[in-house]
């Protein structure tokens, strides 16, 4: 009931009106795909919210059981198509752990570089869509310019902008042209930082933006743990959990960087964590380019891989949080069970708690801060 709601003042007790149920989505301009939210509204205040997902369910977990391990890489790209290299890497790590495959040194550096670059592009996409959710077209178009530049590098080196299919068990598909890397280095060192400064000028300091984000939908560390929230959302409430540090993989332990955290836990903290992560990731990618050793990029692995019987669960810090691959092998060329623990799935499940009592327009500010990708949630 409306009277019980903490955000509704006692004075309104007498003025209770009929609440309306609003189906927001699946076709709505700012639902980031086909997300559906049932909102119970009193005026513009959200009394209760219920997310409805599954509109983009493609049955990837079932499809993977009918494909060989190498073919599954194509599906993995399509889980979270905003951070493709992170997905591929997590999947490769799972299979490499299961089949005990060694990865050459240079391949680890390359993987780290690509994962950090894709973190930049993913956060750029998020930045643009936050702007869009809050009613401005300019951020999204500005954000796509650096994003396109990094995608040009992806295309020139891996053959595809969005669905690279680049990582292989025991390395990467092929080595990268040094000239491309040099051009990227020049871009990351100057132009990307300039662009990020420009975004700060356009949005971060803007009083309208701050008034919409500050203190919105606060979350504590305990709540975040209880709801299974991970990634930048968790780090925004003061936790230091970052799998790149906790369970070191790739070459993260050899790079000079720090995990970005904030203590406020509100929407603004989530924003600022991601904005700083972009700079950190660009820094890491630069270090990778500078310090990458020469050598092999791929170990020899049978074309049709048959991992030994067993199961493995690998946790990986994707751009949205903890990406888990749980692979059960029965010794055949196809996975027996292929399970994806999707970070956005868990983050979105916290949405009903976060947006109760908010206004409709606040809802979009909260929702944008979750940074979900429906393809990964619905799988």
């Amino acid at each position, binding site marked *: 009931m409306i009277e019980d709601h903490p955000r509704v003042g006692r004075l309104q007790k007498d003025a209770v009106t009929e609440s309306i149920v609003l189906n927001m989505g699946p076709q709505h*301009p700012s639902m980031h795909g086909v997300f559906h939210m049932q909102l119970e509204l009193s005026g513009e205040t959200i009394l209760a919210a219920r997310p409805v997902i599954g509109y983009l369910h493609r049955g990837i977990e079932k499809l993977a059981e009918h494909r060989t391990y190498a073919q599954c890489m194509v599906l993995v790209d399509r889980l979270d198509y905003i951070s493709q290299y992170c997905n591929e890497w997590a999947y490769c790590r799972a299979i490499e752990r299961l089949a005990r495959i060694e990865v050459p040194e240079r391949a680890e550096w390359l993987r780290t570089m690509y994962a950090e670059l894709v973190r930049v592009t993913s956060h750029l996409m998020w930045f643009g869509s936050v702007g869009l*959710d809050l*009613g401005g077209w*300019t951020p999204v178009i*500005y954000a796509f310019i650096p994003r396109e530049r990094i995608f040009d590098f992806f295309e020139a080196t891996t053959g595809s902008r969005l669905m690279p299919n680049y990582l292989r068990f025991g390395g990467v598909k092929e080595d990268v042209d040094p000239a491309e890397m040099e051009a990227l280095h020049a871009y990351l060192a100057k132009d990307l930082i300039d662009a990020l400064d420009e975004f700060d000028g356009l949005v971060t300091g803007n009083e309208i933006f701050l008034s919409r984000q500050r203190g919105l939908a606060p979350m504590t560390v305990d709540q975040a743990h209880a709801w299974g929230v991970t990634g930048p959302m968790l780090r925004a409430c003061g936790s230091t959990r970052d799998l790149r540090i906790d369970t070191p993989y790739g070459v993260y332990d050899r790079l000079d960087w720090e995990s970005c955290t904030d203590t406020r836990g509100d929407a603004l903290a989530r924003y600022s964590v991601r904005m700083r992560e972009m700079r950190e990731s660009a820094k890491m990618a630069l270090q990778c380019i500078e310090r990458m050793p020469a050598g092999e990029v791929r170990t020899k692995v049978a074309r049709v891989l048959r991992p030994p019987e067993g199961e493995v669960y690998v946790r990986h810090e994707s751009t949205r949080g903890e990406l888990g691959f749980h692979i059960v092998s029965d010794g055949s060329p196809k996975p027996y069970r292929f399970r994806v623990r999707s970070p956005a799935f868990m983050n979105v499940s916290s949405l009903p708690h976060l947006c109760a009592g908010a206004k409709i327009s606040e809802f*979009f500010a909260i929702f944008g801060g979750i940074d979900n990708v429906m393809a990964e949630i619905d799988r």
Partner: protein
Amino acid sequence: MNARIFLTQLLGALGLIVILGFNVIIMDWWERKLVGHIHRRPGPMHTGWHGILQPFADMLKMLSKEDIVPDRADRLFFWLGPAVAVVPAFMALAVLPLAPGFALADIGNGLFFVFAMQTIMPFGYTLIGWSGHNKWSLVGALRSAAQLISYEIPMLIVALGILLAAGSARLTDIVNAQSTVWYAVKQPIGLLIFFITAVAEMNRSPFDMPEAESELVAGIHTEYAGMKFGLVMMAEYTAMLVGSWMIVLLFLGGWHLWPLPPSPVWLVLKLYLVQSGIIWLRGTYLRLRVDTMMEMSWKYLIPASLANLMLVGVLATTFKGF
């Protein structure tokens, strides 16, 4: 009434409608171009020279589109809504002068006539939103009503300051009072408040609550299609024209541009500069939240406008010719 005067007025009114249509077309193109360049893209480029024919293509599309009326919509008000929104905007234009004495009706109470007409527009928006039988447009209509009513108050109070200083409600007199120094210089706070409230009255970003496409799909005109949607759009552009015209007349010296001789050219130039500024705001800012926006009006703008009125009153009685 003299038949000749009647005929002249009729022709003038028809001419005004043509000019308005022309303004909508120009603004449609100019807004796309300007926002495009803010976005680092060229905007429409395919139709004609730099896409100049794009508005005509849009109009053709709107005219040829199916005119959908939702099943459970209130048919009468669904038709009436756009008309109620667009007619007052047209009527307000009748008293806005382009040059000294050159208006369709240069009436003594021109200032208040414009505001009276602007007050009718929220009814139109509310009707548009309510009649479509859509929850999105209903929320948009409620927002529109609340927003327009609360922003009218500071706007009027600021206009009273102008009235106090100029000593006349005739728009021509107000402009002529600025032949040496504009009211923008004499009443900068007034200009700021008037500009903010005018942008809010036009439903332009960052105050575009009623249509807020990222929140309410398309807000009040979610259910509108075809030429009825075109009418809603026309109402919006006309409201923008009226609002900027008022800013130019009240604060920016109308046809005066010191030290050049007064000319309607300056007025038109200023008019489109102000409109470009409003588009620039749209290209830069995010939308305000609906409750912050109401708060802004009631908590800050109304007290500020009252203070401004008081200041102007003191100055006007102390210094002669202020």
